[in-house]
């Protein structure tokens, strides 16, 4: 799985803005407002990857969270990206 577009991601002061860029990005006129974890996930999806790899990355970065918490947040965010046509499976 991989993002359909390139994204410019910026920490706007605790919350993150993600804006699609590139020639094809004109198809998507919106932007994403993300928390730090979602911004991390989005950054991982710039390259072709798997849910398992992203999960493992998040486990390393957020050791205080349980597997289930990380998994639930990851699935929720991936589903959101897929529904909005931003994720290629």
């Amino acid at each position, binding site marked *: 799985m991989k993002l359909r577009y390139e994204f410019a991601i*910026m920490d*706007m*002061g605790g919350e993150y*803005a993600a*804006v699609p*860029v590139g020639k094809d990005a004109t198809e998507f006129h*919106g932007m994403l407002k993300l928390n730090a974890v979602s911004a991390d996930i989005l950054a991982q999806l710039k390259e072709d990857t798997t849910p398992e790899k992203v999960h493992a990355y998040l486990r390393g970065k957020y050791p205080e969270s349980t597997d289930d918490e990380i998994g639930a947040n990851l699935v929720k965010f991936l589903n959101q990206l897929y529904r909005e046509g931003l994720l290629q499976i």
Partner: protein
Amino acid sequence: MDFTISLAGVNIEIHSLYGAVYELCRDYLTDHRPDFTVSIAPADIEFEREKSVLEAAREGKPYGNFTADYLETLAIYRKISENILRYDVFLMHGAVVALDGAAYLFTAPSGVGKTTHTQFWLKKYPDAFIVNGDKPLLRAVGGQIFACGSPWAGKEGQNRNVMLPLKAVCALFRGNENSIRRIAFDKVFPLVIAQSYRPSGEAEMMQTLRLIKILGEHTRFYALSCNLDPDAARVAKEGMDNDE
């Protein structure tokens, strides 16, 4: 035609195919050495024509059948907006009104009433004037944001060649009564991004986001709920001025 203009303190040499853009830019001409150059080819004009057709179709409006010289003005401002980013300048859609040496930027999606509201300011405050009624440039200089005039100023064309410190950004909403409240940047930055020129390249978009973040760090933001009563100008000004 070849000429040089100064926008937001940046000197831009323009090589145009038609004369309309020269007429548009008369108040911004300069003899200074250019910081960068913008040249137009027929393909740039065709790009603007295709973009206008697509936007009209998306909005369900009839296509305006724009002339090539008008489309060239759009193409030139697009190239300026992409290149001027490296001088810490970005384009934010909105209407800037100036009074007593300070600028106030009103932003909202098309049709909410930016022009109507700023006209209330001009009637209420005789010394007020429009810096730019549609596509002002904002420049970050040493931790301060300046609102800058530009001849690209929408249908009404209201603009003045000045550069003034930006006092506040105010998002307009239609309401039954006039009221204003301060809003946090984390609530308003999606609107600011939506209203800012969106370059296609990642580096340019990152620079735009960086400048918007600076805007958020150095400017106050407000939400103005307003009706068509001219008193909305007083409510807006007093609300922003008395919140020092």
